[in-house]
């Protein structure tokens, strides 16, 4: 275990992987808070699946595996998915859940068609495109970490600058609209930032499990505090913790896939928070209830 910790700082590969996972954890943890509070956690799931055809089209068109180009393709097709969801929910009687399900499965289906098409063309560069499905943190190199860092930095700065706006939007969009905030534009911006987080994440945890990075740390952080500013920090920390521990565990043995382990770590943190969370955890609520009951029986105030 100690070896693993020292390797975290000395081993070049592990350091990059851990750093990449940490960056992903922070940015998806922070943005996940808004998604969870706005009950849009599953939007991230649908949009993550929707990136797959974009990655493939970008590869088919350019023939390169340059991360920046593939990720641009991913962002474009995720945005198309978001627009389609918006059109379906806004223009028909189909509800959000079905719209998400359709975009998720059909975009993913189209992506698998393109993956098999690319494999059929025998292009030597094709190997490795399917790593976007389950992610492959072990292949993260310095270049990727820098790209991820820059994207994450931009996203976090936007959140910091517009924190008050996003806060009002998350808790009371009608009030925000009545105050004259451009609710529509803020909505689009927040969705765009979630797409950025997804794009950062698909290389590491893959399109299928990306939803967990947005939802689970934020839901865990919710158990510790009622203040959004605090929740954002805690959630970012939980995300980073899951990322780094996932990277370390998977480095400690063979056949330990990073993405699923990161998700399982996040789930573990969530379960612990559900019990021990300082604000809403079961343990403290039970204790509080018992104290209140006793105080009530004795006729005093708690």
């Amino acid at each position, binding site marked *: 275990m100690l070896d693993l910790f020292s390797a975290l700082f000395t081993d070049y590969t592990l350091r990059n992987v851990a750093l990449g996972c940490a960056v992903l954890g922070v940015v998806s943890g922070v943005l996940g808070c808004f998604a*969870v509070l706005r*009950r*849009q*956690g*599953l939007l*991230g*799931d649908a949009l993550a*699946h929707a990136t797959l055809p974009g990655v493939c089209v970008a590869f088919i068109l350019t023939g390169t595996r340059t991360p920046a180009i593939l990720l641009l393709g991913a962002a474009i097709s995720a945005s198309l998915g978001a627009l389609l969801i918006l*059109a*379906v929910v806004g*223009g*028909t*009687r*189909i*509800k959000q*859940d*079905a719209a*998400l*399900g*359709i975009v*998720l*499965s*059909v975009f*993913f*289906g*189209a*992506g*698998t*068609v*393109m*993956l*098999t*098409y690319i494999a*059929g063309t025998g292009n030597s560069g094709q190997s490795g495109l399917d790593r976007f*499905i*389950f992610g492959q943190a072990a292949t993260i190199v310095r270049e990727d970490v820098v790209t991820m860092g820059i994207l994450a930095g931009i996203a976090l700065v936007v959140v910091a600058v517009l924190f008050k706006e996003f806060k009002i939007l998350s808790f009371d969009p009608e009030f925000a609209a009545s105050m004259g905030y451009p609710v529509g534009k803020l909505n689009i911006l927040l969705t765009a930032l979630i797409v950025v987080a997804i794009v950062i994440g698909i290389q590491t945890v893959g399109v*299928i*499990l990306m*939803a*967990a990075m*947005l*939802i*689970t740390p*934020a*839901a865990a952080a*919710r*158990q510790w505090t009622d203040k959004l500013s605090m929740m954002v920090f805690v959630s970012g920390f939980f995300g980073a913790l899951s990322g780094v521990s996932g990277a370390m565990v998977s480095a400690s043995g063979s*056949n*330990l*896939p990073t*993405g*699923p*382990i990161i*998700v*399982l770590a996040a*789930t573990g943190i*969530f379960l612990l928070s*559900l019990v021990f969370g300082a604000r*809403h955890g*079961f343990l403290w609520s039970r204790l509080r209830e018992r104290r209140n009951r006793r105080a009530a029986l004795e006729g005093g105030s708690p």
Partner: protein
Amino acid sequence: MSADFIVITTAILVAVPCALLGTLLVLRQMAMIGDAISHAVLPGIVFAFFISESLGALTSLIGAAVFGLLCAVLIEALKNTGRVKEDSSIGIVFTALFALGVFLISRFAGSVHLDLQHVLYGEIAFSPLNSLIIGGVNLGPISFWTLGVVTVIAVSFVLLFYKELKIATFDAGLAAAVGLSPVLVHYLLMGAVSITVVGAFDSVGAILVVAFLIAPAATAYLLTEQLWRMMALAVALGTLSAVSGYYFAAFLDVSISGMMATMTGFLFILALLFSPSHGLAAAFSRRRENRRIFSRDLLLSRIGTLGEKTTEEELARSLGWERRKISRSLDEALRGGFIVRPSSGEVAATRKGRDAARERAGSLA
């Protein structure tokens, strides 16, 4: 039996139960729970492999169905703690279970004859190769047997409980009042969805089964107003996607299940754009028509308030409309016989025009 026939029949046996149950999921706004279950059965299938070593179709069916139901129960339980909203609890539960499944497959790749390709795409192309042989007698493809059972279960579930499902879906309050437990209906449906998803897993994989569950049902929802028609239409659309998807995939030499999912999406887009009752094009032209009629009536009622006869300039000034809009509206009203133009620049309402204005005023009052 030709290989084409076996693959297509297998796909239809996936499409039919999915379409029937998907209709209920879409109407009950539970599409994403269907998605969650389809992911969550993965660890169940892996555990069934551990227990039964070989691919015992029945073991994996049971193992996975247990996890599918477990997923539904966990989502409910997590939601009922009041600590987590429904969408978050769906996201947390299914990603955790799916991650567990992928972890188990990767970790014990040697002892589990299940790879991640299989999880993603299914192996419908191999369905002609796996036959059920009992006592040396070849009883046909295994997929016919497993999916046949699944289809029979799903179809009889829907037929037997059609009335109950209908009431519980459209009026949960009434259902509870006549003694239909909403919880029981919920878990029966979740059980049926679990069995269907597991049966379909081998053929089309964990994610693409969602396309068969949701897309044909949602497409049918855009085309009809009646439950039984919606179900029949969803079945037809799912079947059409399966058949056309197979031939496109064979032609382009790409993933069969992926192409079938793409076809469900293609049919959905067609309905989304062109459905006569709920399509975007119809909605757009309806909105334009309404706007046109509204401005015509506005014009007519203004003619009425300005006196029986007025001029084009005065109308334009009084309504504050642009020159182009006013002349277009006037032309239309003239064609429809709502106004007459006794001399150039002059406008007067006909009896028909006055009636239209009065009717609009009445409807707004």
